[in-house]
């Protein structure tokens, strides 16, 4: 299945990309997606540890199971306002 990964702020700058398309086996979890991202972008290792994930625009645990065409966003510590 195909999952779109969105990167923001410090993660986007470090990786040098804002969107990544990942091919993952059906039933993959968020954790599996993050592991695959780190293979391509090992520079994200430290920042990812402090980041949260949002699945289709809602925060989710890393145990969440992904579906085809999901949008998974990597959310570093927020600093709006």
């Amino acid at each position, binding site marked *: 299945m195909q999952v779109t990964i*969105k990167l*923001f*702020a*410090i993660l*986007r*700058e470090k990786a040098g990309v804002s969107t990544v398309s990942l091919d993952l086996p059906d039933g993959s979890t968020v954790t599996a997606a993050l592991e695959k991202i780190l293979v391509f972008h090992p520079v994200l290792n430290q920042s990812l540890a*402090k*980041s*949260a*994930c*949002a699945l289709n*625009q*809602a*925060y*989710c*645990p*890393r*145990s969440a199971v992904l579906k085809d065409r999901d949008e998974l*966003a990597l*959310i*570093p*510590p*927020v*600093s*709006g*306002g």
Partner: protein
Amino acid sequence: MNDWIELSASPLSTAAAVEFATDPAAGGIDLFLGTTRQEKNGEGKSLLALDYEAYPEMAVSQMRELAARARTQWAILKIVLLHRTGRVGLGEPSVIIAVSTAHRAASFEACRWIIDTLKTEVAVWKKEVWADGTTSWVAGHTIEIPS
């Protein structure tokens, strides 16, 4: 509609926010502006501006949800919640919140709750832009999610 929620790349208008929040049933309107504060970094360089980035679809939906959550806690007439993206210079507002209520205590409490909660939850980030051209992401609040 009684809420005006917007993520905007253009300067925010206080006058428009107050006009929207004005209501004949209101006894009080509290309005908060978060503005870029001049600072110096560890190397003595002055801050020029803040650059704001958002996850737009999520941030707007979170801002709408903040307004809805405020309404479950206080009797609110109108809510304005505007947030900038892009470059915000010294003294300029990056966020404007306005809350009108029949009695003033609720307008202060709700306005403050919204800005406090926005800062810890909404998918927006700011980067400091220093006079020497360097930039640094503000440390920010880690989102805690029960796994």
